[in-house]
């Protein structure tokens, strides 16, 4: 998408936020905006690896978890977020680099399975390394603090998350237009042809995972503060599949796909919960009603927009 197109893609968002504030109320809407932006940031990591690099990533939540734990531990050690947030992203980037190593020998679904194994190893390590991670019991994370002020209101959290997402999207836009972005797409389309053209596929894949890991790790660092409690089970396979679903629903090959996907994953269940309240008693109380309705929404979106919401219909 060219630059003008990207700006046009950003246009609906302020209107959506304003509409949500009117419909849901300020704090509820801003809390949703916080999590939509944070999930979009995590999903951006999947867009880079899957949508641009063409690799199958089944364990992205592990990288989110690495970022979350790194941030929580560094903050607990008294480090400023100015240092801890980049350090958390760097930790997840290193995790991404590690996860990409099997790509030198494996491809396709086999490589996807190795990312799944990586996620399981990370989750297990978080459980077992009790002296550092508090094991399966998890631990509380304090509010994010900048210049002595706590970012603990929905408005402040939304502002930080949206600013982080916009920054990350601008960075990704530059990357996608760069030589590296073209290399990623070349590898995605045909690895052998890319190699024949002088592109090093292994290096391109490694960098895709490093960038994707950093983005997801940064999102994990923010997530740890917004949720206030982290435990290994939160970064399990379900979360990885949720991120993958987010990217495909939104449009894995498009920058704005992460934001649209996050909107569907985070905000649609909330809209359903509000609509459910209008249903008669017994119907509204049916167990799993929201999950069923959410499933219907996903199927409809996939049928109407097979290339993702941000893609071509």
């Amino acid at each position, binding site marked *: 998408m060219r630059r003008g197109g990207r700006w046009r893609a950003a246009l609906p968002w302020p209107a959506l936020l304003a509409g949500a504030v009117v419909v*849901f109320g300020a*704090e*509820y809407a801003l*809390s949703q905006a916080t999590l939509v932006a944070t999930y979009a940031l995590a999903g951006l990591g999947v867009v880079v690896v899957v949508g641009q690099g063409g690799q199958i990533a089944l364990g992205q939540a592990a990288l989110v978890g690495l970022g979350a734990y790194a941030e929580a531990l560094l903050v607990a050690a008294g480090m400023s977020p100015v240092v801890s947030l980049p350090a958390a992203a760097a930790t997840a980037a290193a995790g991404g680099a590690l996860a990409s190593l099997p790509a030198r020998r494996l491809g396709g679904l086999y490589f996807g399975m190795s990312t799944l194994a990586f996620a399981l190893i990370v989750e297990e390590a978080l459980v077992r390394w009790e002296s550092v991670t508090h094991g*399966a019991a*998890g631990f509380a994370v304090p509010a994010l603090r900048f210049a002595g002020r706590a970012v603990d209101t929905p408005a402040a959290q939304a502002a930080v998350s949206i600013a982080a997402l916009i920054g990350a999207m601008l960075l990704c836009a530059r990357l996608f237009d760069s030589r590296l972005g073209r290399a990623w797409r070349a590898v995605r389309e045909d690895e052998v042809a890319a190699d024949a053209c002088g592109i090093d596929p292994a290096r391109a894949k490694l960098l895709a995972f490093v960038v994707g890991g950093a983005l997801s790790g940064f999102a994990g660092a923010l997530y740890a503060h917004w949720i206030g*409690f982290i435990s290994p089970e939160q970064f399990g396979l379900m979360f990885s599949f949720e991120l993958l679903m987010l990217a495909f629903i939104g449009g894995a090959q498009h920058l704005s796909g992460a934001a649209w996907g996050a909107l569907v994953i*985070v905000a649609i269940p909330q809209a359903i919960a509000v609509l459910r309240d209008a249903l008669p008693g017994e119907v509204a*109380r049916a167990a799993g009603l929201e999950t069923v309705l959410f499933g219907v929404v996903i199927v409809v979106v996939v049928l109407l927009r097979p290339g993702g919401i941000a893609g071509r219909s």
Partner: protein
Amino acid sequence: MNPFLKPALVAFASVVLSAAQAASVTPGVTDREIVVGTISDLSGPIALLGVPVRDGMLMRFDEANAGGGVHGRRIRLVVEDSGYDPKRAVLAARKLVQRDQAFAFIADMGTPVVMASMPVIVDAGRLHLFPFSPHESTYLPLHPLKFQNFAPYQTYMEAATRHMVQAHDYRRSCLLYQDDDYGLEVMKGVEAALGKLGRPLVEKTSYKRGATDLSSQIARLRGADCDFVVLATVVRETVAAMSEARRIGWKADMLVTASGYSAQTHELGGAAVEGLYGVSVLPHPYAEGANRQLADWIQRYRTRFNADPNVWSVMGYTLADMFVRTAEAAGPQLTIDRFARTLEHMSFTRDYFGSPEYRFSPTDHLGNRYGRLAQIRNGKWELISDYLK
């Protein structure tokens, strides 16, 4: 005076007045209604608990409403499904606080869910009552809005293990535990009990949540020659562990936590779980042999929900009953502070369910610390001790 000034002043004054009134009104309480919120799991990994707990609460609130409500106010329970996802729990808490104006949150379910949503709830000045989480922060340090009814597993498993080891003189105690916060809590209790008795924990082995094959763990425990095994398992794993042990002809005694104390354990396990010991924090409501009041209650539950009640239904009903009785005792001028201060002086005596006594005080917001022992005999749980202190 400017002809527009007077109406403008009147409008301004009315806005200020209504804002002041709104600020002084108790959220979720009107002349006709009290709104109570719950963040449950109706579609996730512990939906097996979430649905009956919700139904139990609905039944008690409906009964209170049929009787004219609490000081003329109907109680409306707003249920949000978190699916055990902390992200959804945070948003559900915001919805209940802001849109539904919940007066109190009751029986929120699951440690990650509770830990993520509790700050949102108490920061908004709402009551956080009786969550299903063994985490100590649900009642400690003392907080004016936090009340808990369920003791940490550690507390009552320590008493239960000590009682069993003393009563049966077990020499080689072992532990099979789920590899999460639940399992670790139980482990602490077992280690504390054995420490007090000066006996070692001979062997311990874990499994990941969702595991269905526990043959290697059972072989390891048998290899250690355990004569007593504490199971920090849930229903399915309890059945799997007992079945495997009996299949290979191993007869060691086993004691499961309250998470395995369920009718499903003997329904699924059959003969393999005969003789299993369990810890009960509330007895299972069997229709057979029930006292008259309990039999009536079971019948009403069946009629209302077209299903048999279980121990979770009783828990939901009991928690809602405690809410109703405290709201009644707080008087017609219901405020959050008045409810909390009233609850601090409430004592709930033992009832026809066979529940323990729940008692709160201004310095102790944990209502009960005790469990009692039960054993599966002739295909159903039989209580074999009173609450262990």
